[in-house]
């Protein structure tokens, strides 16, 4: 099948691209290094597991690093957005700054949601946008499954209120200091079951017709009754 092959080619090309541009903290990166030579073979092999393309120089990732000099930020270029991974405990240090800093001006919370990475814990994703400057960024943080707590950002963006309630419903992530963290989309008593977690697979589709179907078909079953 030629089309499947081309798909494979694309995938390997993507991998190659990723390997050539290893992840690096934005604070360590000068604009001159943006077009640095690809690393040697053994280097790329070493970093293959978590090789991520760097964000464009002078972009939102650099502005974030500038505004938040003493916070650990791990920025890389995603397929469509710049993604910044942060520590969970830093959330309330970061969020008020990114909203109010005039260089960033990320006043619009597009969306907030959770992702279940199974063994690698849960993740909370904040999609931020600046209507004035037109730039956007995705901020992420990881939480361990047995201690799924993170500070609520409702005091920064009111929009987070319902998003956080929904995320609690679906993933069981507790948002500390949320003003009203009760079930939103799910029934009020459904507080111990988190449907969007990966350990809640969809039920099998029942095939009731199987071996209970009489030999002669439906007509026969109706007659017997």
């Amino acid at each position, binding site marked *: *099948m030629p*089309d*499947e092959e*081309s*798909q494979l080619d*694309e*995938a390997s090309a*993507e991998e190659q691209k990723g390997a050539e541009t290893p992840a690096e903290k934005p604070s360590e990166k000068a604009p001159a290094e943006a077009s640095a030579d690809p690393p040697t073979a053994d280097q790329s092999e070493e970093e293959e597991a978590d090789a991520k393309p760097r964000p464009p120089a002078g972009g939102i990732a650099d502005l974030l690093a500038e505004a938040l000099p003493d916070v650990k930020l791990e920025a890389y270029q*995603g*397929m*469509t*957005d710049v*993604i910044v991974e942060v520590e969970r405990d830093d959330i309330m240090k970061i969020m008020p700054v990114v909203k109010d800093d005039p260089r960033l001006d990320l*006043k*619009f*919370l*597009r*969306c907030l*949601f959770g*992702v*279940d990475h199974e063994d690698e814990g849960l993740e909370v*994703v904040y*999609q931020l946008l600046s*209507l004035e400057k*037109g730039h956007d960024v*995705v901020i992420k943080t990881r939480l361990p499954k047995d201690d799924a707590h993170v500070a609520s950002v409702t005091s920064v*963006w*009111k*929009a987070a*209120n*319902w998003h956080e309630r929904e995320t609690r419903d679906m993933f069981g992530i507790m948002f500390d200091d949320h003003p009203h963290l009760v*079930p*939103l*989309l*799910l*029934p009020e008593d459904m507080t111990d079951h988190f*449907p*969007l977690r990966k350990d809640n697979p*969809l039920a099998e589709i029942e095939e009731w017709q199987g071996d209970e179907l009489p030999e002669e078909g439906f007509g026969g079953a109706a007659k017997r009754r």
Partner: protein
Amino acid sequence: MVQEQQLETVDINVNMGPQHPSTHGVFRMVLTIDGERVVDVEPHIGYMHRGAEKLSENMDYRAAIGFQDRTDYLAQFLNEQAYCMAVEKLLELAVPERTEYIRVILCELNRITSHFMFLGAFGIDLGYFGTSFTYGFRERERIQDIFEEVTGERMMYGYFRPGGLAWDVPDNFVQMIRDVLPHARQGLNDLDVLMTQNEIVAARTKGIGAMSAEDSVNWGLSGPMLRAAGIDWDLRKDKPYSIYDRFDYDIPVGSHGDVFDRYLVRLEEARQSIRIVEQALDQLPDGPIMPEKMPRRLRGPEAEVYAAVEGPRGEYGIYIVSKGGDKPYRLKIRPPSFCNLSALRDMTVGNYVADAVAILGSIDIVLCDVDR
């Protein structure tokens, strides 16, 4: 000497919904009222929650298109567009020129039908009863007929595919739309004449449910709700996607952020959509509707993408987390109605009970979009 009796005033809880004609679907809100004033609102949603996100995780990229029609069921083409754009970004598919044009034409017509629905229902919320609804639906029906002719469906189109379209449009596609546009324009004028200058509408809507520009941004409002507050933000202009940079049209912006401005913005937006459709029909090229090399199974790389469209209710976005394979690992829908509705309490408290209905109507919610 008569002792003055100590009378107690009690706040009353009034339950509205889930089955109530003015809640536009299965939505319940508990109003706490002091006389005729609303002092608190507690919205209850989730009656229509079907787990579209979870179901999408268990289906391959083509199969999950159907859920997009069923979220915001008044803007199906726009939702399909957002979903297909997200998958196309993930798989790096190039969409043929003709497909882009057909998508834009259908999406803008869809925006017009959605706004007709709003204008008709809005009149009912304000007590017009039949007139505005008849005006709105008469014209909406003509456009609906075109959709039926093109897709074979009246509501759940399922017409867009990652990379292209399910099939090409019928031969009389351009002529059909050219015939319908004057009617649509006339319908908008009729509603304009009926409502804009009407004193009762003005009394019921001006200054009601106003939200400042700053609050609107903080609450994450989008679409006409945000623009009514005076913020000129439209994804079609500010983050151009598809081929929207090729057309000449204006973005209407309000100034007060009240119910009346939201109505005006939607009315004008529908007119601008007619302009876009006219230009797109003039430019519609011939050619294929699917990319030449289309993989039989859609397999995404390990990546994350976000794609959003400016729907009639606001930014409708799809965030896909892919870990390889033919299914999304996580698919998140950013529902515009959900975000807009979350600000209901701030807009309603302090107003009269009767205005609560007008405010809820002005948000133009679709409950299937809120609950997914």
